[in-house]
Protein backbone atom coordinates (compact mmCIF):
# COMPACT_ATOMS: atom_id res chain seq x y z
CA UNK A 1 0.00 0.00 0.00
CA UNK A 2 2.96 2.34 0.63
CA UNK A 3 4.00 2.20 -3.03
CA UNK A 4 0.38 2.79 -4.06
CA UNK A 5 0.13 5.80 -1.77
CA UNK A 6 3.38 7.20 -3.12
CA UNK A 7 2.11 6.84 -6.68
CA UNK A 8 -1.22 8.42 -5.78
CA UNK A 9 0.57 11.53 -4.52
CA UNK A 10 2.81 11.59 -7.57
CA UNK A 11 -0.36 11.60 -9.69
CA UNK A 12 -1.75 14.50 -7.64
CA UNK A 13 1.56 16.36 -8.06
CA UNK A 14 1.43 15.72 -11.83
CA UNK A 15 4.74 13.85 -11.71
CA UNK A 16 3.85 10.35 -12.86
CA UNK A 17 5.48 8.43 -15.69
CA UNK A 18 3.88 5.83 -17.96
CA UNK A 19 4.77 2.94 -15.62
CA UNK A 20 3.28 4.65 -12.59
CA UNK A 21 0.05 5.39 -14.46
CA UNK A 22 -0.24 1.74 -15.47
CA UNK A 23 0.37 0.63 -11.89
CA UNK A 24 -2.28 3.05 -10.62
CA UNK A 25 -4.82 1.93 -13.24
CA UNK A 26 -4.28 -1.75 -12.34
CA UNK A 27 -4.45 -0.91 -8.63
CA UNK A 28 -7.72 0.98 -9.11
CA UNK A 29 -9.17 -2.12 -10.81
CA UNK A 30 -8.01 -4.70 -8.33
CA UNK A 31 -7.53 -2.92 -5.01
CA UNK A 32 -10.68 -1.34 -3.51
CA UNK A 33 -8.65 0.29 -0.74
CA UNK A 34 -6.44 2.06 -3.26
CA UNK A 35 -9.48 3.07 -5.32
CA UNK A 36 -11.11 4.52 -2.21
CA UNK A 37 -8.00 6.43 -1.25
CA UNK A 38 -7.29 7.81 -4.70
CA UNK A 39 -10.91 8.88 -5.17
CA UNK A 40 -10.99 10.63 -1.79
CA UNK A 41 -7.73 12.46 -2.41
CA UNK A 42 -8.67 13.46 -5.95
CA UNK A 43 -11.94 14.82 -4.64
CA UNK A 44 -10.15 16.92 -2.01
CA UNK A 45 -7.70 18.27 -4.59
CA UNK A 46 -10.49 18.99 -7.07
CA UNK A 47 -12.32 21.01 -4.42
CA UNK A 48 -9.18 23.08 -3.86
CA UNK A 49 -8.53 23.60 -7.55
CA UNK A 50 -12.12 24.56 -8.32
CA UNK A 51 -12.61 26.68 -5.22
CA UNK A 52 -14.17 30.09 -5.69
CA UNK A 53 -11.72 32.99 -5.77
CA UNK A 54 -12.70 35.63 -3.25
CA UNK A 55 -12.50 39.19 -4.53
CA UNK A 56 -11.31 42.14 -2.43
CA UNK A 57 -13.67 45.06 -1.77
CA UNK A 58 -13.93 47.88 -4.34
CA UNK A 59 -12.13 50.38 -2.12
CA UNK A 60 -9.12 48.09 -1.57
CA UNK A 61 -6.54 49.99 -3.65
CA UNK A 62 -7.71 53.42 -2.50
CA UNK A 63 -7.53 52.30 1.14
CA UNK A 64 -3.97 51.03 0.68
CA UNK A 65 -2.88 54.25 -1.02
CA UNK A 66 -4.36 56.33 1.81
CA UNK A 67 -2.31 54.38 4.33
CA UNK A 68 1.05 54.67 2.56
CA UNK A 69 3.63 56.72 4.49
CA UNK A 70 3.83 59.57 1.94
CA UNK A 71 0.06 59.95 1.84
CA UNK A 72 0.08 60.16 5.63
CA UNK A 73 2.22 63.30 5.50
CA UNK A 74 0.61 65.72 3.06
CA UNK A 75 2.73 68.59 4.46
CA UNK A 76 5.90 66.79 3.42
CA UNK A 77 4.39 66.05 0.02
CA UNK A 78 3.57 69.75 -0.33
CA UNK A 79 7.14 70.72 0.58
CA UNK A 80 8.51 68.19 -1.94
CA UNK A 81 6.20 69.60 -4.62
CA UNK A 82 7.39 73.09 -3.76
CA UNK A 83 11.03 72.05 -4.21
CA UNK A 84 10.76 69.73 -7.19
CA UNK A 85 7.33 70.28 -8.73
CA UNK A 86 6.93 72.04 -12.08
CA UNK A 87 5.60 75.60 -12.05
CA UNK A 88 4.92 78.52 -14.38
CA UNK A 89 6.67 81.83 -13.62
CA UNK A 90 5.05 85.02 -14.85
CA UNK A 91 7.40 87.86 -15.76
CA UNK A 92 7.03 91.50 -16.62
CA UNK A 93 9.75 93.64 -18.21
CA UNK A 94 10.76 95.44 -14.98
CA UNK A 95 11.17 92.19 -13.05
CA UNK A 96 13.16 90.62 -15.91
CA UNK A 97 15.54 93.61 -16.08
CA UNK A 98 16.06 93.64 -12.31
CA UNK A 99 16.85 89.91 -12.32
CA UNK A 100 19.29 90.32 -15.23
CA UNK A 101 21.15 93.07 -13.33
CA UNK A 102 21.41 90.85 -10.25
CA UNK A 103 22.72 87.89 -12.28
CA UNK A 104 25.37 90.00 -14.03
CA UNK A 105 26.49 91.49 -10.67
CA UNK A 106 26.72 88.04 -9.09
CA UNK A 107 28.80 86.71 -11.99
CA UNK A 108 31.19 89.66 -11.84
CA UNK A 109 31.61 89.19 -8.07
CA UNK A 110 32.23 85.48 -8.36
CA UNK A 111 35.07 86.06 -10.87
CA UNK A 112 36.88 88.31 -8.38
CA UNK A 113 36.45 86.31 -5.15
CA UNK A 114 37.68 82.80 -4.47
CA UNK A 115 34.96 80.17 -4.35
CA UNK A 116 33.76 79.25 -0.85
CA UNK A 117 32.42 75.90 -2.03
CA UNK A 118 35.12 73.22 -1.78
CA UNK A 119 35.68 71.41 -5.04
CA UNK A 120 37.11 67.92 -4.91
CA UNK A 121 39.05 66.64 -7.88
CA UNK A 122 41.81 64.24 -6.94
CA UNK A 123 40.26 63.91 -3.47
CA UNK A 124 37.22 62.15 -4.80
CA UNK A 125 39.22 58.95 -5.23
CA UNK A 126 40.38 59.29 -1.63
CA UNK A 127 36.76 59.37 -0.49
CA UNK A 128 36.12 55.97 -2.02
CA UNK A 129 37.60 52.67 -0.99
CA UNK A 130 38.20 49.80 -3.34
CA UNK A 131 36.58 46.72 -1.86
CA UNK A 132 37.19 43.30 -3.31
CA UNK A 133 34.43 40.73 -2.69
CA UNK A 134 35.28 37.06 -3.17
CA UNK A 135 33.10 33.99 -3.30
CA UNK A 136 34.29 30.42 -3.75
CA UNK A 137 32.04 28.20 -5.85
CA UNK A 138 33.83 25.95 -8.38
CA UNK A 139 30.55 24.47 -9.62
CA UNK A 140 28.79 27.80 -10.32
CA UNK A 141 28.33 28.85 -13.94
CA UNK A 142 27.87 32.51 -13.05
CA UNK A 143 28.00 34.64 -9.91
CA UNK A 144 26.84 38.23 -9.58
CA UNK A 145 26.47 40.64 -6.70
CA UNK A 146 23.54 42.90 -5.86
CA UNK A 147 23.28 45.33 -2.99
CA UNK A 148 22.55 48.83 -1.78
CA UNK A 149 25.61 50.09 -3.67
CA UNK A 150 24.20 49.16 -7.10
CA UNK A 151 20.51 49.62 -6.19
CA UNK A 152 20.09 45.84 -6.18
CA UNK A 153 20.90 45.50 -9.84
CA UNK A 154 23.23 42.60 -10.56
CA UNK A 155 26.93 43.11 -11.39
CA UNK A 156 28.73 40.06 -12.77
CA UNK A 157 31.75 38.75 -10.85
CA UNK A 158 34.92 37.52 -12.57
CA UNK A 159 35.96 33.88 -12.36
CA UNK A 160 39.48 32.73 -11.48
CA UNK A 161 39.45 28.95 -11.10
CA UNK A 162 36.77 28.25 -8.50
CA UNK A 163 36.92 31.75 -7.06
CA UNK A 164 34.67 34.65 -8.10
CA UNK A 165 35.70 38.24 -7.43
CA UNK A 166 34.58 41.78 -8.03
CA UNK A 167 36.13 45.09 -7.11
CA UNK A 168 33.82 47.90 -6.04
CA UNK A 169 34.64 51.53 -5.37
CA UNK A 170 32.53 52.47 -2.37
CA UNK A 171 32.13 55.50 -0.20
CA UNK A 172 32.27 54.99 3.58
CA UNK A 173 29.05 53.54 4.90
CA UNK A 174 27.17 50.37 5.69
CA UNK A 175 25.95 48.26 2.78
CA UNK A 176 23.81 45.13 2.54
CA UNK A 177 24.31 42.73 -0.36
CA UNK A 178 23.98 39.16 -1.61
CA UNK A 179 25.54 36.97 -4.26
CA UNK A 180 23.38 35.47 -7.02
CA UNK A 181 24.58 32.08 -8.22
CA UNK A 182 23.56 30.90 -11.71
CA UNK A 183 20.99 33.74 -11.93
CA UNK A 184 18.71 31.90 -9.55
CA UNK A 185 20.06 31.30 -6.06
CA UNK A 186 20.64 34.18 -3.65
CA UNK A 187 23.41 33.53 -1.16
CA UNK A 188 24.43 35.83 1.68
CA UNK A 189 28.23 36.21 1.58
CA UNK A 190 29.54 33.41 3.86
CA UNK A 191 32.60 35.54 4.60
CA UNK A 192 30.64 38.56 5.86
CA UNK A 193 31.14 39.81 9.41
CA UNK A 194 27.43 40.25 10.04
CA UNK A 195 24.05 39.71 8.45
CA UNK A 196 20.71 41.43 8.35
CA UNK A 197 17.33 39.74 8.10
CA UNK A 198 15.47 41.13 5.10
CA UNK A 199 12.17 40.51 6.90
CA UNK A 200 10.93 38.03 4.34
CA UNK A 201 12.68 34.83 5.33
CA UNK A 202 16.08 35.59 3.77
CA UNK A 203 19.12 37.47 4.98
CA UNK A 204 21.67 39.73 3.40
CA UNK A 205 25.35 40.15 4.23
CA UNK A 206 26.35 43.46 5.82
CA UNK A 207 29.60 45.26 4.99
CA UNK A 208 30.93 48.35 6.75
CA UNK A 209 33.28 50.51 4.68
CA UNK A 210 35.61 52.88 6.53
CA UNK A 211 38.28 55.19 5.12
Amino acid at each position, binding site marked *: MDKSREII*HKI*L*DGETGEEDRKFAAQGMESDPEMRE*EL*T*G*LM*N*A*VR*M*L*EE*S*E*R*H*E*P*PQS*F*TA*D*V*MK*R*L*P*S*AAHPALAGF*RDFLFGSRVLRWNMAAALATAVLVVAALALSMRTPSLIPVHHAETTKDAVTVRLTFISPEARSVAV*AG*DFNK*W*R*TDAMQRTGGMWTIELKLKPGVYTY*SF*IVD*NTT*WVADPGAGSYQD*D*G*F*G*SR*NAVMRVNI
Partner: protein
Amino acid sequence: MMTDQHTDEGELIRKCRDNDADAYAVLVDRYKAMAYNVAYRMTGDEDTAKDLAQESFISAYGALKQFRFGSKFSSWLYSIVLNKCRDFLRLTKDTVSTDDIAGIRPDKGPNPEQAASARQDRDLLQQALNALSGEYREVLIMKHIEGLDYEEIAGITGASVPALKVRAHRGREMLRTVLEQAGVSHG
Protein backbone atom coordinates in the same frame (compact mmCIF):
# COMPACT_ATOMS: atom_id res chain seq x y z
CA MET B 1 14.12 36.01 -21.27
CA MET B 2 12.19 38.84 -19.67
CA THR B 3 8.51 39.07 -20.56
CA ASP B 4 6.76 42.36 -21.30
CA GLN B 5 5.03 42.12 -17.95
CA HIS B 6 8.38 41.69 -16.17
CA THR B 7 9.90 44.66 -17.99
CA ASP B 8 6.83 46.72 -17.23
CA GLU B 9 6.93 45.59 -13.62
CA GLY B 10 10.60 46.48 -13.23
CA GLU B 11 9.85 49.96 -14.54
CA LEU B 12 6.90 50.32 -12.17
CA ILE B 13 9.03 49.29 -9.20
CA ARG B 14 11.75 51.78 -10.12
CA LYS B 15 9.10 54.51 -10.28
CA CYS B 16 7.74 53.42 -6.89
CA ARG B 17 11.23 53.73 -5.43
CA ASP B 18 11.23 57.30 -6.70
CA ASN B 19 8.04 57.89 -4.66
CA ASP B 20 5.66 57.63 -7.60
CA ALA B 21 2.49 56.61 -5.78
CA ASP B 22 0.51 56.21 -9.02
CA ALA B 23 2.92 53.47 -10.12
CA TYR B 24 2.35 51.65 -6.85
CA ALA B 25 -1.43 51.91 -7.30
CA VAL B 26 -1.00 49.99 -10.57
CA LEU B 27 0.88 47.21 -8.77
CA VAL B 28 -1.72 47.05 -5.97
CA ASP B 29 -4.52 46.81 -8.53
CA ARG B 30 -2.69 44.07 -10.39
CA TYR B 31 -2.05 41.85 -7.35
CA LYS B 32 -4.82 42.70 -4.89
CA ALA B 33 -7.00 39.72 -5.87
CA MET B 34 -4.10 37.31 -5.46
CA ALA B 35 -3.08 38.71 -2.06
CA TYR B 36 -6.65 38.86 -0.79
CA ASN B 37 -7.54 35.33 -1.90
CA VAL B 38 -4.45 33.81 -0.26
CA ALA B 39 -5.13 35.73 2.97
CA TYR B 40 -8.77 34.64 2.88
CA ARG B 41 -7.88 30.97 2.35
CA MET B 42 -5.28 31.14 5.13
CA THR B 43 -7.59 32.81 7.68
CA GLY B 44 -11.12 32.01 6.52
CA ASP B 45 -12.37 35.50 7.37
CA GLU B 46 -13.08 38.31 4.90
CA ASP B 47 -12.30 41.27 7.19
CA THR B 48 -9.09 39.67 8.42
CA ALA B 49 -8.10 38.84 4.83
CA LYS B 50 -8.66 42.45 3.77
CA ASP B 51 -6.57 43.79 6.69
CA LEU B 52 -3.72 41.34 6.15
CA ALA B 53 -3.63 41.86 2.39
CA GLN B 54 -3.63 45.66 2.81
CA GLU B 55 -0.92 45.49 5.47
CA SER B 56 1.11 43.31 3.11
CA PHE B 57 1.00 45.97 0.39
CA ILE B 58 1.93 48.69 2.90
CA SER B 59 4.89 46.61 4.16
CA ALA B 60 5.93 45.84 0.59
CA TYR B 61 5.95 49.55 -0.26
CA GLY B 62 8.21 50.27 2.71
CA ALA B 63 10.55 47.43 1.74
CA LEU B 64 10.70 48.02 -2.03
CA LYS B 65 14.38 48.94 -1.74
CA GLN B 66 15.03 45.33 -0.77
CA PHE B 67 13.19 43.94 -3.79
CA ARG B 68 15.59 41.97 -5.96
CA PHE B 69 15.29 42.82 -9.62
CA GLY B 70 15.10 39.67 -11.70
CA SER B 71 12.87 37.91 -9.18
CA LYS B 72 9.08 37.99 -9.57
CA PHE B 73 7.16 40.66 -7.71
CA SER B 74 4.31 38.17 -7.23
CA SER B 75 6.63 35.68 -5.47
CA TRP B 76 7.98 38.41 -3.23
CA LEU B 77 4.46 39.56 -2.41
CA TYR B 78 3.34 35.98 -1.70
CA SER B 79 6.11 35.68 0.89
CA ILE B 80 5.01 38.92 2.58
CA VAL B 81 1.34 37.87 2.64
CA LEU B 82 2.22 34.44 4.04
CA ASN B 83 4.38 36.00 6.75
CA LYS B 84 1.50 38.28 7.77
CA CYS B 85 -0.87 35.30 7.84
CA ARG B 86 1.60 33.20 9.87
CA ASP B 87 1.94 36.00 12.43
CA PHE B 88 -1.84 36.32 12.62
CA LEU B 89 -2.37 32.56 13.03
CA ARG B 90 0.38 32.38 15.65
CA LEU B 91 -1.42 35.01 17.68
CA THR B 92 -4.88 33.53 17.31
CA LYS B 93 -3.94 29.82 17.12
CA ASP B 94 -6.76 29.50 14.66
CA THR B 95 -7.77 25.89 14.20
CA VAL B 96 -11.11 24.21 14.71
CA SER B 97 -11.62 20.61 15.68
CA THR B 98 -12.68 18.07 13.10
CA ASP B 99 -15.70 17.30 15.32
CA ASP B 100 -16.94 20.84 14.74
CA ILE B 101 -16.70 20.32 11.01
CA ALA B 102 -18.43 16.95 11.08
CA GLY B 103 -21.28 18.70 12.85
CA ILE B 104 -21.75 21.19 10.03
CA ARG B 105 -23.63 18.74 7.87
CA PRO B 106 -25.60 16.32 10.03
CA ASP B 107 -27.35 14.71 7.11
CA LYS B 108 -24.80 12.66 5.18
CA GLY B 109 -27.34 11.32 2.72
CA PRO B 110 -27.86 12.54 -0.85
CA ASN B 111 -29.05 16.14 -1.08
CA PRO B 112 -31.63 16.85 -3.79
CA GLU B 113 -30.78 20.56 -3.93
CA GLN B 114 -27.53 20.40 -5.87
CA ALA B 115 -26.84 24.13 -5.91
CA ALA B 116 -27.25 24.47 -2.19
CA SER B 117 -25.03 21.44 -1.74
CA ALA B 118 -22.27 22.96 -3.87
CA ARG B 119 -22.42 26.15 -1.82
CA GLN B 120 -22.24 24.13 1.37
CA ASP B 121 -19.23 22.19 0.01
CA ARG B 122 -17.40 25.48 -0.59
CA ASP B 123 -17.99 26.52 3.01
CA LEU B 124 -16.94 23.06 4.11
CA LEU B 125 -13.73 23.35 2.15
CA GLN B 126 -12.79 26.55 3.98
CA GLN B 127 -13.65 25.07 7.34
CA ALA B 128 -11.72 21.92 6.47
CA LEU B 129 -8.72 24.09 5.56
CA ASN B 130 -9.10 25.95 8.85
CA ALA B 131 -8.82 22.60 10.65
CA LEU B 132 -5.31 22.04 9.28
CA SER B 133 -2.28 23.62 10.88
CA GLY B 134 -0.81 26.61 9.04
CA GLU B 135 2.11 24.80 7.39
CA TYR B 136 -0.19 22.26 5.70
CA ARG B 137 -2.81 24.85 4.81
CA GLU B 138 -0.13 27.04 3.27
CA VAL B 139 1.32 24.42 0.93
CA LEU B 140 -2.12 23.22 -0.22
CA ILE B 141 -3.20 26.78 -1.00
CA MET B 142 -0.02 27.59 -2.91
CA LYS B 143 0.06 24.29 -4.80
CA HIS B 144 -3.58 23.55 -5.56
CA ILE B 145 -5.39 26.91 -5.35
CA GLU B 146 -2.69 29.27 -6.63
CA GLY B 147 -1.31 26.60 -8.98
CA LEU B 148 2.40 27.21 -8.25
CA ASP B 149 5.06 24.54 -8.73
CA TYR B 150 7.16 23.28 -5.85
CA GLU B 151 10.28 25.21 -6.93
CA GLU B 152 8.42 28.51 -6.79
CA ILE B 153 6.81 27.63 -3.44
CA ALA B 154 10.27 26.74 -2.12
CA GLY B 155 11.52 30.18 -3.19
CA ILE B 156 8.59 31.84 -1.42
CA THR B 157 8.56 29.85 1.82
CA GLY B 158 12.25 29.02 2.20
CA ALA B 159 11.40 25.32 2.65
CA SER B 160 13.07 22.65 0.50
CA VAL B 161 11.15 20.95 -2.33
CA PRO B 162 11.26 17.49 -0.66
CA ALA B 163 9.96 18.99 2.61
CA LEU B 164 7.14 20.73 0.72
CA LYS B 165 6.18 17.49 -1.03
CA VAL B 166 5.94 15.71 2.32
CA ARG B 167 3.79 18.55 3.68
CA ALA B 168 1.52 18.48 0.63
CA HIS B 169 1.24 14.70 0.90
CA ARG B 170 0.25 14.84 4.59
CA GLY B 171 -1.93 17.90 4.09
CA ARG B 172 -3.95 16.20 1.35
CA GLU B 173 -4.42 13.11 3.54
CA MET B 174 -5.65 15.29 6.41
CA LEU B 175 -7.94 17.32 4.18
CA ARG B 176 -9.44 14.16 2.71
CA THR B 177 -10.07 12.78 6.22
CA VAL B 178 -11.66 16.01 7.45
CA LEU B 179 -13.88 16.31 4.37
CA GLU B 180 -15.00 12.70 4.62
CA GLN B 181 -15.79 13.15 8.31
CA ALA B 182 -17.90 16.13 7.31
CA GLY B 183 -19.78 13.92 4.87
CA VAL B 184 -18.48 15.26 1.56
CA SER B 185 -19.11 12.43 -0.86
CA HIS B 186 -16.75 11.37 -3.65
CA GLY B 187 -17.24 12.15 -7.30
